[in-house]
């Protein structure tokens, strides 16, 4: 990572460095967006739809997304399902264990604002953005597999638009 971090700063100074940077950026981001490995973090109903997305009809692998059981190998955490107050510290822990650059997809109403458990619930965290920064929200209860795929495509577009310099600032 050290090289990639320093590279933009050096190349920008070179004559014609901008062109090199642009193509480098495009290549890097395309590669990054097309191989998002996601952490299997399913808690509730959305986890079943996440499973369906990974299964035969809505093959997740077409988008280059492969599930990982450990956060250390994952780029993306799909928070699928309700996060309760008891679970929230564990979600934070898993997020902290992931390597940069890392992304978060909040799947389902529960992760946006608590969903059906917003009112009258004493144990549900009302939105996971209190715990970890979220890149893309997907509403639905639970969202259809297509919605999830669409959310992932939104995230891929977002990654492609990033600049390498953003990375550097993110830390």
């Amino acid at each position, binding site marked *: 990572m050290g090289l990639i971090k320093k590279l933009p700063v050096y190349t920008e100074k070179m004559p014609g460095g901008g062109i090199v940077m642009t193509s480098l950026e495009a290549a890097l981001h395309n590669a990054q967006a097309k191989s998002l490995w996601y952490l299997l973090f399913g808690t509730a109903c959305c986890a079943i739809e996440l499973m369906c997305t990974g299964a035969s009809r809505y093959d997740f692998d077409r988008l280059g997304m492969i599930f990982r059981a450990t956060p250390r190998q994952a780029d993306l955490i799909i928070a699928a399902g309700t996060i309760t*107050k*008891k679970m929230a510290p564990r979600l934070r822990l898993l997020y902290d264990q992931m390597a940069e650059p890392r992304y978060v997809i909040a799947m389902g109403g529960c992760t946006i604002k608590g969903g059906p458990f*917003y*009112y*009258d619930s*004493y*144990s549900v965290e009302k939105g996971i953005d209190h715990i970890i920064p979220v890149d893309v929200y997907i509403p639905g209860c639970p969202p259809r597999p297509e919605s999830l795929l669409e959310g992932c495509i939104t995230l891929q577009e977002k990654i492609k638009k990033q600049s390498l310099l953003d990375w550097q600032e993110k830390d």
Partner: protein
Amino acid sequence: MDKDQLSAYLTDKSEGKLTLLEVGRHDPIFKVEASQLIEVCTWLRDDEQLKFDFLCNLSGVDTGEQFEVVYQLASTSKSLRVDIKVILPYDGAEIESVQKVWAAANWHEREMWELYGINVKNHGKLEFLLLPEDWDEGFPMRKDWDAPDFIRMPEF
């Protein structure tokens, strides 16, 4: 045995320990004193005609004035169902554990203890089950419970 026969049998044979509250929409409901709970439960499980060997459910109830503990029992061999209800006062609610009769009661009692604050005697392991370990906001299922971040649904 249908539910009327069952209610008659239970009223007859229990020597006054079980009082019929209601024949019920579907199953009979009996009341038992908290002091006689274990005795009655053991009898219900071991009686040859009843064989209530299956504890379906155990609910704690807060009616606003008192606590109720309802034991839903079933018999797998005789296909019977009965509800046993214990009424407890609001202050100092305490009940004997029925774990020795049905092991299934263990978690239900722990849950009742943490959510309603009904103390369970001789339980052996009264620890938080559903709530976080550092929970200190009281007993959330009680009707009068409130907390700062608890949002009630607006009435329209």
